[in-house]
């Protein structure tokens, strides 16, 4: 059992960081926002699955070749579908709803609050709060 377990976890290649620290940082940021396709809910940066390692290698490769962040995201999306993007796309209707929703809610909430407060009267006492 023990031997079986150990043999399961021996793999062949290791994660080799890029030489350029700025590129490596960019690659790591991308690894945190791409989802491992074989795992429950983990970014590829965290997963020990072999596919996640391949994905990490590919990200480093692309960053090393000078691809922009968006090109890397697009490449993975075309390959695995939008499921891999932890940063959902905003260029369609539902994406816009998702991204703008919170700010829309804030605007609506603010408007309701403003209107509630505005119908108040003119004579108002000022009372210092002594306790909370």
């Amino acid at each position, binding site marked *: 059992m*023990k031997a079986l377990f150990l043999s399961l976890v021996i793999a062949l290649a290791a994660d080799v960081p890029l030489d350029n620290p700025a590129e490596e940082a960019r690659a790591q940021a991308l690894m945190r926002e791409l989802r491992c396709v074989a795992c429950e809910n983990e970014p590829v940066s965290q997963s020990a699955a072999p596919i996640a390692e391949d994905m990490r290698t590919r990200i480093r490769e692309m960053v090393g070749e000078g691809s922009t962040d968006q090109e890397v995201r697009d490449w993975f999306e075309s390959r695995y579908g939008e499921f891999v993007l932890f940063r959902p796309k905003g260029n369609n209707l539902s994406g816009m709803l998702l991204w703008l929703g919170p700010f829309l*809610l804030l605007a609506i909430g603010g408007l309701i*609050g403003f209107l509630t*407060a505005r119908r108040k009267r003119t004579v108002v006492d000022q009372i210092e709060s002594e306790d*909370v």
Partner: protein
Amino acid sequence: MIEAGHFAAFLALGAALAQTIFGLKGDRRWAGMSAVTGFGLMAFSFLTLVHAFAVSDFSLLLVANNSHTLKPMLYKIAGTWGNHEGSMALWALVTFAFGAAAAALMKTGRVNFEAHALGVQGFLTAGAMGYLLFASSPYLRLDPAPFQGAGLNPLLQDPALSFHPPMLYLGYVGYSFVFALAAAGMMDGRIDRVWAKEARRWSLAAFVPLTLGIALGSYWAYYELGWGGWWFWDPVENASLMPWLIGAALLHSVIVTEKRENFAAWTALLSVLAFLFSIMGAFLVRSGVLTSVHAFAVDPERGTILLFGLMVYGVLALGLFVWRGPSLKGAKPWLIVSREGALMANNIVLIVAALTVLLGTLFPLMAEAAGRTMSVGEPYFRLTFVPILAVLLVLLPVAQNWAWGKADLKQWTRWAIAGAALVAVFAALGIGIWKISLGAAFGLALGVWLIGGALWELRRRAVTLKRVFRVSPRVWGMTLAHMGIGLFIIGAVIETTERYETTVALAEGGSGEAAGWTLTLEDVRSIEGPNWYADKAVLTAVKGGVTTVLQPMKRYYPAARMPTTETAIFKTGTGDLYAALGEQRVVDGQARWVFRVYFNPLIDFVYFGVLLIGLGGCLSMVKVKR
């Protein structure tokens, strides 16, 4: 023994029903007696379950499925609530406990109102008991009894996670009594000062354990999962964050109701929502509708029943709200620039933040129903949730000294100058000296702004420095909680933006560099624990004159056939040097061990900040005699 416990649970259900009937009839005394009796019966019943786990009675299905003789005693006992049925038994017990505590502690002088509150609590308790006994029974026997149990999910074999569920449930279920108070207040037609005093105390009694429960869970994820992070925007985490945000909004709104008898309907609505979001959290976690890295005991069918219960409570409460809410009007006038206005802004932002979490958590689910698979993760919340809350936090120190009714803005130029100066100083220091990003520098400035603002407000209320220790515990509570948020922001921003993360592969005797530390792998040895065996690495870390030994482990639990990571953490004073042992690999023809090494700067600020928030909440509960 278990049969006695099972029988006691049925009697407890009877007591909950009696509590409901007496309570709704207005009989405070008998409703209270029923609550206390029910609590006693359910406590006994729960103890029989704990006992079965402690002695590894595998003739009980629940124990056979979730325990193992080789587990240490603490985890045998914690195993009682480390599974679906047992955790529901705990939920029911805590619901009784709040009813019994309320029966003993409530002293509003309004007999009818108190009876109604106990009655509603009895109704919620009966719901939990009915679910426990008829849909999710932990009392089932197994014949023949196996010789050994299947073990608990090894990830849960951890001290922090033993106490995480009880804490979280104290919070979730605590809101059941806040819900009961709101329902009773609406029946009574009075959501006023007396009501608010009571509701405020119980909201704090729920908020503090919820806060600490979330922190424990986060701390566990930090050191146990081996990923170096402390919050992953995982659906299960989000499920607990939503009631927390609603609860935080409630804590502020109830102040307006207590001091000015305004926002009455709104406070009642939030009281109802806090509990509904708590059940929804339980539903999301328990039903398995969301994919999550730590969905432990899931069962879709029971999830459906929970969802049904959520809808029944929701419809009843909101119906009551629609019926009685309009009569709850605040009388005292106020302008936008006033304490009321500031607290309203606080509520709007916190509710929008909670809804943002809800949107991000449920959106993939809705997309799936529409035939698309997609993910929403950390980048989404970083770009929506974070800036929305940041706006509120920037305004907090400015607005927290505003007067009720109308505030004067004479000092706003001073605040603006102070704020701008702070940002300028931190931007210069951050970029020039500390070499951090501009965003991180803003985050630091915001944290300092909050801490300074909280202290400034304490000083203002105390008038002179000598009187600082004579201000009321509530003012201290507010100060500590707001300072806690400041510390949390500093920790969260610095940890998230400046975290260093790398992988090193070391052969035994070999050395490598990470985060400025030289790591030497002395050896990797096999060791055995009570119900696991492990590879333990001994890493010597040297930086400057400091030397430390890190011993990360990779454990394997044969009973559950699962590996876990045991990280090694060294606190350097400015952060955590954090190592997790990975797999063994062949690199350059040599067998090497892979380590994930992180440096997490100021991570303790995150937890210390949350602790301060909890401590502030405790202080605010202290009664002051006048």
